[in-house]
């Protein structure tokens, strides 16, 4: 899952980014409103964390522009402005959630996870698909047999992507977008390697290769 973090305070952005990456998200940071609006319209992000007090273009304006252009990117507003009328305005502008500063990063991660699940039409707290149960806190997967399988960082990101989009074809480019942030070296062949790792750990049949199209996580015959 690739997230857009919009925060003009470089120190806070760095610390939040680190925590989010540890939680298994690829993170891009935008420091001003105009850059943020442009990145948000790229269509590669699963979610945006948006500060409201931004240089050049205010967060509410950025959000309103996204919504006016039909961009339904899930947005968590992160702001020091926590009066109720400001919260109401934030939600009216199209925010999906609101977190007031100062905040604990654990709460932010919990809200991100919940919102990502919700926006992928997944209900409930735990990601449980096709006999697999993903423990997002410990970043491990539990098989139907009860066996716990450890995952590396990239494997975890990739599997979460598959579990949130079961039975849907995901192209290599899409997977790269969700697994790596903007600054990483992107090598789509690497995806193949990690898909094979997952197949080895979870069974060959679970991920199907569609030649020329991409990969599909199967839930039908498991």
């Amino acid at each position, binding site marked *: 899952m690739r997230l857009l973090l919009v925060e003009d*305070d470089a120190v*806070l952005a760095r610390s939040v980014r680190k925590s989010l990456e540890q939680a298994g998200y690829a993170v891009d940071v935008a420091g001003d409103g105009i850059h943020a609006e442009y990145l948000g319209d790229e269509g590669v992000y699963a979610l945006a964390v948006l500060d409201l007090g931004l240089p050049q273009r205010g967060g509410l304006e950025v959000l309103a522009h996204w919504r006016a252009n039909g961009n339904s990117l899930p947005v968590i507003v992160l702001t020091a*402005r926590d009066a109720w009328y400001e919260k109401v305005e934030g939600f009216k502008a199209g925010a999906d959630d609101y977190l007031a500063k100062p905040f604990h990063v654990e709460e932010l991660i919990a809200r991100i996870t919940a919102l990502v699940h919700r926006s992928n039409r997944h209900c409930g707290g735990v990601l449980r698909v096709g006999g697999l149960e993903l423990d997002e806190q410990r970043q491990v997967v539990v098989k139907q047999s009860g066996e716990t399988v450890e995952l590396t960082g990239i494997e975890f990101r990739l599997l979460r992507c598959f579990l949130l989009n079961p039975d849907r074809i995901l192209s290599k480019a899409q997977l790269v977008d969700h697994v790596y942030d903007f600054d990483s070296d992107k090598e789509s062949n690497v995806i193949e390697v990690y898909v094979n790792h997952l197949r080895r750990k979870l069974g060959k049949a679970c991920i199907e290769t569609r030649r020329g199209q991409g990969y599909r996580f199967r839930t039908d015959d498991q």
Partner: protein
Amino acid sequence: MKSLQLRLATGLLVSLMVVFLILWWLLSAALRLQAEAAIAIHLGHDAESVLAAIEIDPTGRIALDSGKVEPVYHRPFSGQYYRIMVDDRIIRSRSLWDQDIPLMAAESGKTQRMFVAGPRQQPLVVLVRGFSKQGKTITVAVAEDLTPTIAIINAFQQRYSLIALFLLLGLIAVQGIIVARAFQPLKRIRGQVHSLERGERHQLDNDVPSEVAPLVNEVNRLLQVLDQRLLRSRNALGDLAHALKTPLTVVQQLAREEALNPLPAIRTTLERETVNMQRLMDRVLKRARLAGSGPPLSRFDAGREIPDLVNALKKMHRDKPRTVELRITEADPLPIDREDMLELTGNLLDNAWKWARKTIRLTLVVDRSVGLTIEDDGAGVSDDVITTLTERGKRLDEAVAGYGLGLSITKLITEQHGGRIEFGRSPDLGGFRVVVVLPV
């Protein structure tokens, strides 16, 4: 108290009196001149007829044929008199009785008019004319009593004064009405100032008479400046909050760094102090930003704003779905600051959300005051806690754990608006109930 109306009335009264006096004098003089001229013509004719009645016999004796003179000259003190002087001889009309009018002789062909006092103190106008008849110089003086004329003039003057007095009173009354009408816009402005205070309007109407317009415009400008100042100070506080909270978040994050694992004491202190800072900041900022009573910046449209607020709360508490029953009867926007009302309602609803099992009910009733009731179906609180909550000046967030800053801010807002807040148990739902009553 200087009454403009009194000053205007005095001014009008004095100027009208001057005008009426001048007119009175002019008219009286004109009347008198007119009457005297008419008398003079009439006396001229009489003088001629008296002259015609004079007969001088060849011996030089003068006689008067009284039959040729009007009979009024024979009635004693009738007011019409003649006196004929030829050389040393004087013939007086019978009407003069035993009195005389001492007069000088006039040269022939000369006419004099004079005023003298006659018999019985009658004011007389006298025409003295000199004639020459049969070689003798005859001075004929004819006099008429002015008393009837003066009586007529006096009667006129009395009537005139009476009419002038009525006109004066009438004009002052008319002026009073005009002035009262002219001050009507001021009364309207006073009404508008009242509605400014109640927040029903932001500016005064400027379709007022041009004399009042500068004042109204100044008041409007002042109102605008005050509005902007309140807005600016609110914005400045918001900016301050923003500026302080971001670094505070960074410090909080720092406390969780792995490098601090071997130093639990430092971590605990950092965490505790950042929480303290956050609490202090919240309290000070929220207290400072409250608008309190006075002209609200924007009015509170409960029918529109509360559903928006509930919507926001539902999105914030997705993991805790609650049914919110809204019972709002008021359709008109309330003259209470929108931001304060949202803060108050938001805090109470958020609190109810925390404790409710399924249902939260919000009731808003407006009559002479605004009554806002928020109740839930949670466990409620014990009577002890309610007593503690109700205590005046108690900091609720310190008094009762779990009731956080929210209730204390609600109490602050209520007090600032001069209202009252009651805590208790919901008779219907069984949980906690808060009633806020705010004056409108």
